[in-house]
């Protein structure tokens, strides 16, 4: 025999005085009990297990090791900045003006005849022909209203690059369109962001701003041209 409840219409939601407000009865179907509803309310928390399956959560299914890099493949070998990530802003760094000078020097040293910039070019001129660079190749990318310096970068597949990026006037974004999807960072004036990137496929990729930065925001763009690294002799 089921205990029944009777509800009177009236005062805007269940009130303490109504008989039905005695709450659950043991004879209710379990789907209509408080405990079930309270537990089901946490249903979305179960998405954690998907994150863990992709190694993107603490105590993931990879044995609780460090979560992988943002692309889910596992962190790329970190250059000299290893260990800094996750520890917040360093105590010191470049100001916008210092970064501008570093960036301009980088462009000057690595500029090609067509105005594009090939990072590591200066280093390669002095190195053994075709030898792989020792360690990551530094790339300076400066974002400003409304462009990037350098505006055209020439990179190679399989080469680890260490991008050093900063916005020097207002906040900007730096997003690469990489075929079916993209990858972005947000840049704030005076804060240098470093990221290790290694391209696996050649192509000409659009670089564009993803943080609104003024009236010409949707004109702010650059190119990253990635070519296949030639076979080593």
């Amino acid at each position, binding site marked *: 025999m089921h205990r*029944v409840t009777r*509800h009177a*219409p*009236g*005062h*805007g*939601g*269940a*009130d*303490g005085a*109504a008989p039905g407000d*005695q709450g*659950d009865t043991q*004879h209710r*179907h379990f789907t*209509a009990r408080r405990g079930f*509803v309270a537990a*089901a*309310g946490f*249903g*979305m*928390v179960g*998405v954690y297990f*998907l994150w863990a399956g*992709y190694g*993107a959560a603490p105590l993931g299914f990879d044995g609780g090791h460090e*979560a992988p*890099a943002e692309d889910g493949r596992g962190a*790329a070998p970190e250059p000299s900045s290893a260990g*800094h*990530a996750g520890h917040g802003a*360093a105590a010191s760094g470049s100001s916008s003006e210092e970064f501008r000078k570093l960036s301009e020097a980088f462009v000057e040293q690595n500029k090609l005849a067509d105005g594009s910039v090939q990072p590591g070019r200066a280093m390669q001129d002095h190195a053994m022909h075709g030898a792989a660079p020792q360690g990551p190749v530094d790339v300076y990318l400066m974002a400003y209203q409304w462009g990037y310096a350098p505006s055209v970068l020439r990179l190679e597949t399989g080469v680890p690059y260490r*991008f050093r990026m900063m916005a020097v006037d*207002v*906040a900007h974004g730096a*997003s690469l*369109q*990489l075929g079916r*999807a993209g990858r*972005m*960072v*947000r840049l704030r004036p005076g*804060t*240098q*962001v*470093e*990221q*290790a*990137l*290694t*391209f696996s496929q050649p192509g000409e990729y*659009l670089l564009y701003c993803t*943080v*609104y*930065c003024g*009236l*010409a925001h*949707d004109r702010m*763009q650059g*190119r990253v041209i990635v070519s296949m690294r030639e076979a080593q002799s």
Partner: protein
Amino acid sequence: MKEHHALIDGLKALPAADQRLLKSCIAAALAALLLGVVFGAATALARGGFVELGPLTGYRSMTAHAVSIFFYWLYFAQAGLLLVFATVFTSHRHGIEWRWAAWLGLALMLAGFAASLFGVSSGTPLLYDAPPELGREPSAALGATYVGYLLLAAGLFCVATAGIATTVAPLARGEHDRMPVVSFAACAWAGLLMVSAIAAANAFLPSALWALGLRGAPAEYATGWHILFHNMHYLPLMATVLVWYVLVEALTGVKSIFGARFSKIVFALYLVFVPPTSLYHMFLEPNLTEAVRVAGSLLSLFISVPTVTVFLVIVASLEVHARAHGAKGLFGWIGMLPWRNPAMSAIGFAVVNLALGGALSFVLIQEKLAALLSDTFFVPGYFHFLTVGTVTLTFLAALLYVLPALTGRPLWRPEVLRWMPHLASAGLALFGGAGIAAGYAGVPRRVLEVSYDGAAPAAWTALMSVVGSGGALMTAALLVYVYALLRNLMPLGTAAPAGGEALPEVRWGEVVTGAQRAWSGPLAVTILVGLTVAFTMLAFELMRALPLTAGAGAVH
């Protein structure tokens, strides 16, 4: 015999001065909605390539749309609904306590709206988050922008004060020994409004002083903005589920089968779960440490708990009563709801849209996916499911009930209005569907044109055309609502033809309930989790397929 109807009877019994105040709040809300919708249509059509606005007009339209909708439509409407719920379900005989504070609050909010519109129309377009660095130098337009937000915050604080006073006064007078559920929820809602008003002062006061030439440029703006923004975009959601809670009883006579105390605990959960989960808006901020990002993701997993639980309370209560009333099959009870009532139609679609928006929003709380999606069109793609498809439809549903009770005039063409959620949701499906696809592909938000001189994939422009088309459909539906409500508020021409007929409702509240099952809610949650898993897996797989390997680096 006429049914007892707590909401409508309570509104009709309010003192005339309270009715004038509530109608004024609703009029302000509709004005903001109208402006926001018009500017939103202009923005969507420009983005879709259907009209050419140029950058100055285009970005001003985008700013005016966001400011009018996010800051003013949603908050004028909340001010009115908060006072309705606080007074009708507490002590409608006494009306609104500290009415002068509510009037002052409304006046401050209106002054804020005027200042914000001046700022939008006369200065450099800053978009609604208005970072001071974009303004470059102090100016009257910049000052108006921040002062407008501060006036809005001060106004909300005053209205919330009146709302809390209204809910607690009967306790102080000894009329109640405990607070009714809706009054309790309204009190919690008002508390969060006050917290948000303080957060707004924290975010905007330094910038306002700078813009008025009274101090130097603020050193930090983004963090204060994100904290404020997080609270401000969850407040309408809390209001939404409370409106559902109230309207479902108005439409069906059904009250929660889980008791008052349980409902109060669930509404109180918003105070617990909303404030600590703001970090996920900041995942791309360069100074945020990895540990904070991970903590932000984990905390954000709990943001859905109060909303999902209220949804389950409502759906289980409805289903149990409908089954006791003879509903057959797994979903047969849904067909018995009064769908010809435009308010029922609106909140029905709002529930579906919330599921879609909620599932998509959960993709963004995973910090590893921020680099793929955070500043893309994925964001407006998902949040329009919430702002338009859920919150706005729900608030409009409430106004369809509240306004005729206040004016005494019948609703204009309810048989037309009940189809508007279909039209708005069809537009939303185009806007949101194409927008989400665009976001996955990397299309940036907050731009007017996406071709990048032909360097962007051709699909980007095509997707934006679909977004623009969807925006036009949503606009049409919302304009019909605005017309119907304004006509009720300020009767134009001949009298409305509805003849005072009551809107369709069902009365299931008196039915005896027993061991009826309530599977629809848990099934809906299962579908919600499934959608979230699918959208999240798609994002992870897209990241895996990128032709590059990325490692985190240092921040200096």
